[in-house]
């Protein structure tokens, strides 16, 4: 009975691992196959042919797409953190009238369905002359990242011991100095966590990127992959799509593996502590 339970347990672990990993594994082996090979199913890697990887960059401005994604996600993270840390200090350390209501409103914004702001955002971006530009996407993505950045950073800010800032105030520091000199260094780990989550959200964002860009050169990676077409309208270049998928997924997987604990703590700070 005991061994049976153990075997069952390990089978379950194996099944979970297989289910989680198989799609990515299959994308990798498919990305090394091209032409008529793809019309037969292969379960094991049989060759190491990089032609799909070259094709992705030749057939379309995929390098540019990746660069666009990095620029947009990087700017979104920087802006969200800069705004988020100062706001989180006020929300987490100072009690003032209307604080709970404001925090509640910000939490409410993070629940906004993206599509609810789509037409208004379209008009806004157009009137600023930002249609089909990266700044337009950065602006739009702030709606997705800023609320939870403030929220998660506030929960981290609350946990800091009270004595830290009291000592600084006694020494005559202003609130601004306290934020910059005392909390900025202390908040670094929390900022890394939140920044990573914001980066992943922006890197994966699709609806805004699809709607607010027009030309292939301005697209970020998700719409570029979604709209990839083959030489004919009826045939999708699966090998190339899989190669592109592997390229953009690898850095994210690397980030997740390296910062696993930080990401989990950020996710749970945002959800469970709420």
């Amino acid at each position, binding site marked *: 009975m005991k061994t049976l339970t153990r075997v069952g*347990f390990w089978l*379950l*672990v194996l099944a979970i691992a297989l289910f*989680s*990993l198989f799609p990515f594994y299959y*994308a990798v082996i498919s990305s090394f196959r091209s032409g008529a090979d*793809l*019309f037969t199913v292969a*379960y094991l890697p049989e060759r190491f042919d990089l032609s799909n990887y070259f094709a992705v960059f030749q057939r379309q401005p995929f390098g540019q797409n990746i660069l666009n994604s990095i620029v947009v996600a990087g700017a979104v993270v920087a*802006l969200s953190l800069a705004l988020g840390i*100062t*706001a989180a*200090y*006020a929300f987490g*350390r*100072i009690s003032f009238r209307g*604080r*709970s209501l404001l*925090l*509640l409103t910000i939490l409410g*914004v993070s*629940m*906004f*369905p*993206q*599509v*609810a*702001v*789509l037409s*208004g955002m*379209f*008009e806004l971006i157009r009137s600023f002359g930002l249609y089909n530009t990266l700044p337009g996407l950065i602006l*739009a993505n*702030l*709606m997705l990242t*800023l*609320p939870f950045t403030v929220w998660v950073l506030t929960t981290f800010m*609350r946990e800091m011991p009270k004595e830290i800032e009291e000592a600084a105030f*006694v020494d005559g*520091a202003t609130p601004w100095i306290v*934020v910059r000199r005392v909390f900025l260094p202390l908040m670094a780990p929390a900022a890394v966590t939140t920044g990573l989550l914001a980066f992943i959200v922006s*890197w994966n964002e*699709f*609806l805004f990127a699809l709607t607010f860009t027009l030309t292939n050169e301005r697209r970020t990676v998700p719409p570029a*992959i*979604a709209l990839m077409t083959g030489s004919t309208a009826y045939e999708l270049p*699966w090998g190339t799509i899989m190669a592109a*998928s592997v390229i*953009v*997924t690898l850095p*994210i997987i690397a980030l*997740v*593996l390296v910062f*696993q604990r930080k*990401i989990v703590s950020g*996710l*749970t700070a945002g*959800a*469970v502590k*709420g």
Partner: protein
Amino acid sequence: MTEAAATGTPSAYASIRGGSSALTRTRVRAAWTFIAPTLIVLALVAGWPLARTIWFSLTDADLNNLGDYTFIGFENYLANYDGEWFGLLTDPDWWLSVWNTVWFALVSVSIETVLGTIVALILNAAFPGRGVMRAIILIPWAIPTVVSAKMWNWMLHDQFGVINDMLLRLGLIAAPITWTANPVTALWTVVMVDVWKTTPFMALLILAALQMLPQDIYEAAKVDGVHPVRVFFRVTLPLIKPALLVAVIFRTLDALRVFDLIYVLTANSRDTMSMSVFARQQLVDFQEVGLGSAASTLIFLIIALLVVITMAAGRVRLGGDSR
């Protein structure tokens, strides 16, 4: 702002001991200065666009010429011409998309909750390789939705897909299935891919709750020889219920606004269209900003209503601590 803050500092020491005073006032003023930029940005990128969307839903605006529109009241929602009803609320496609979205949210979140709990229980057990497993289950969560939809699209390909090949080899199906095109299987396919992608999120939240449970209860149960299944339903489940509820609410709200997955996995197929896909199609593909905005507004209202109900139910407590 720095000057304003500086005026309060001489009395700083006294105020910390004495309570309300210049320092408190300075801090409150500083608080508003600190949150002002965030509030301005949020008003610009969330508040204003939302207000405009709601306004557009009362007009006949067109995407090509957004500046030129007339106010038409609620005609996008419901209008009566010569005894016949028109508008979004009479559109069977809209109601189909509502039904699809609700069905998708209920089924996928239920499956994810059960599977997530199982995965969390496994990861909570001590076994060699636990850290590796936790990293492995994070991978589906981290893969961009568009990419995972494309990966599954390829695996589910009706002619060359590996899923059909596996099932044929195992003798479970007699002929290849057109997973994403067949109206019977399409929505289930969407659910399956969503389960693959978001069960890890669920599992991690539940795992965090499990790890906060006191261990002595379990030791006591073990000493008393209570069956593990009984322990789970009588002890573990009631204790993790609050965390489980929060996770379920988050996931449900997320599922109700589903867009990427369905848009990429099943294109613009009517059978699987979600509310968000419907709204964007009206808005962008048909250029009907008025009608699309009306759909967007309804989606917003549905989700806002759910949020308000949940918050009123007292599951989310905020800023309760008084510093």
